[in-house]
């Protein structure tokens, strides 16, 4: 097994005439937490959607465990063990918390097209689903509908659902976006706890979270890689300070 789990080679995405991501090379080390940061409009979200196959690159290659996944569909890479989260908490609002997690587990049974069978068989997955919910501290809310959970807990539910797939690689799109300080802490702890045995790539605004969790940070600016390395190195890079931290010193104050 290679040390690199995910690799992007010379990845480029044009929208009409606008180059959102321009020739980015990226290597994600197996077992690490890798954060992609950058000022607004730096191409983080585009980069994230490229890696998760929700958009197709204009040129360049993406390799997962040395397999070319550039032309794969999102459902295909999910089956390979690459699972993403969304910026707006992605839950199934009118299903119960338990049913949410069960949907991730259900795929393993291979009965998802069986429209003639009773869903009572899915109760076999309840214990497994409850175990995932316990990991994120949601066991007491199992019978509530997801829509009734507060925001931070929805995020925890989303992570529990993602964990249900036992992904090798988890991609988190701004996991603490729009959260109060308390929820940010909870979710940061949660990510720290579930990293065991897997690789996590996250796009994140909150530098406090990044400094706390990430082993490697890639700083994007204007669609290109500006700097890469651990937080201590990247945060002292003069270009980064100018392009990112310099312009948002107040924001940094607020978020850290």
């Amino acid at each position, binding site marked *: 097994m290679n040390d690199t789990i995910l690799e992007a080679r010379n990845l480029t995405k044009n929208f009409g005439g606008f180059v959102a991501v321009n020739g980015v090379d990226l290597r994600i080390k197996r077992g690490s937490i890798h954060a992609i940061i950058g000022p607004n409009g730096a191409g983080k979200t585009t980069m994230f959607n490229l890696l998760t196959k929700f958009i197709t690159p204009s040129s360049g290659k993406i390799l997962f465990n040395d397999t070319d996944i550039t032309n794969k569909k*999102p459902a295909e890479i999910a089956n390979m063990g690459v699972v993403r989260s969304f910026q707006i908490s992605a839950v199934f609002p009118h299903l119960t918390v338990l049913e949410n997690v069960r949907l991730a587990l259900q795929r393993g049974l291979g009965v998802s097209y069986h*429209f003639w069978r009773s869903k009572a068989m899915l109760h076999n997955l309840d214990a497994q689903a409850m175990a995932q919910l316990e990991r994120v501290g949601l066991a007491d809310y199992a019978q509530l509908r997801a829509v009734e959970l507060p925001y931070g807990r929805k995020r925890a539910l989303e992570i529990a659902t993602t964990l249900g797939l036992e992904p090798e690689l988890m991609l988190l799109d701004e996991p603490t976006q729009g959260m109060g300080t308390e929820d940010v802490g909870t979710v940061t702890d949660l990510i720290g706890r579930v990293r065991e045995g897997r690789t996590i790539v996250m796009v994140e605004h909150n530098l406090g979270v990044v400094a706390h969790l990430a082993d490697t940070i890639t700083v994007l600016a204007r669609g290109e890689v500006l700097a890469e390395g651990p937080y201590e190195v990247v945060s002292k890079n003069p270009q980064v300070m100018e392009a990112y931290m310099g312009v948002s010193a107040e924001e940094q104050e607020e978020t850290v």
Partner: protein
Amino acid sequence: MQEMSNTTTDIGEFEENTGEPEHRTRSRIWQGIFWVALIGFLLIAPALLYPVFVMQLLCFALFAAAFNLLIGFTGLLSFGHAAFFGGAAYIAGHALKVWGFPPLLGIATGTLFAAALGWAVGSLAIRRQGIYFAMITLALAQIVYFLVLQLPFTGGEDGLQGIPRGHLLGFIDLNQPLAMYYTVAAIFLIGFLVIYRIIHSPFGQVLLAIRENEPRALSLGYNVDRFKLLAFVLSAALAGLAGSTKALVFQFASLTDAHWQMSGEVILMTLLGGMGTIFGPVVGAFVVVALQHALSGIGSWVQVVIGGTFIACVLLFRRGIVGELARLLKINSL
């Protein structure tokens, strides 16, 4: 002791351990009440009401329930379901009249045709979402309407007339009103049970996930397009079952069955009864068909009354009759 250790591994037991909330128990009770009421109605209706009217109710109720499978449980708005309802009516009628098929085989032929047509229309339509999806289904349904009007075997403006009812299984004469009625009641009940099972299957769970959050279902590894297509085909086939049955009952397949207005009516029935509810479409179909009958004396003003009802429904009780009832009773599914 042996028995005790057995019960602890029982799945039902586990569910109790995790705590079945009170609203779910209530939900079950009320669903039971609705089932009893429905089956009771099916059994005694011909004694109280004109059987042909009840059979019409049941055909539309099945049609609406089939439509609800898409809009209520998958989140797809088809504006072309008349093509499956009407198209199947014509094919079943032709099979019964010209090919001399026995009644059940004729209905099966119409149903299979609707499934195939659903596959063709669905494959094209699911490539787009929202309003574009609706527009593609409408456009394709208009093509079907045009074919129904122009093809040599359909009888054009007159419709396909004189469809024989024949003998069920070779010996039950369907020209006897009660024999015909209980056959239709059985077809309706089977169709409705099939829909109920689809909703409550592992497949139905994925459909709900797609309705609730399609990108998330995709990111969990579900091939969303294949699920949508299968749902579309099932819905079309069941709409075809309703249309074929209606052709047998009325011995007549008419242009209005395939007209776009019929696609609109089934949307109205489903919204009025409560989309995404189990019994809503049945209630909605009963209300709309009953209104049409009761108000037939005022001619085309019926449309105005039904339009007004629709506006009132959207403004005042958006969940539909059964949806609002479920809310009042504080239960999640009815």
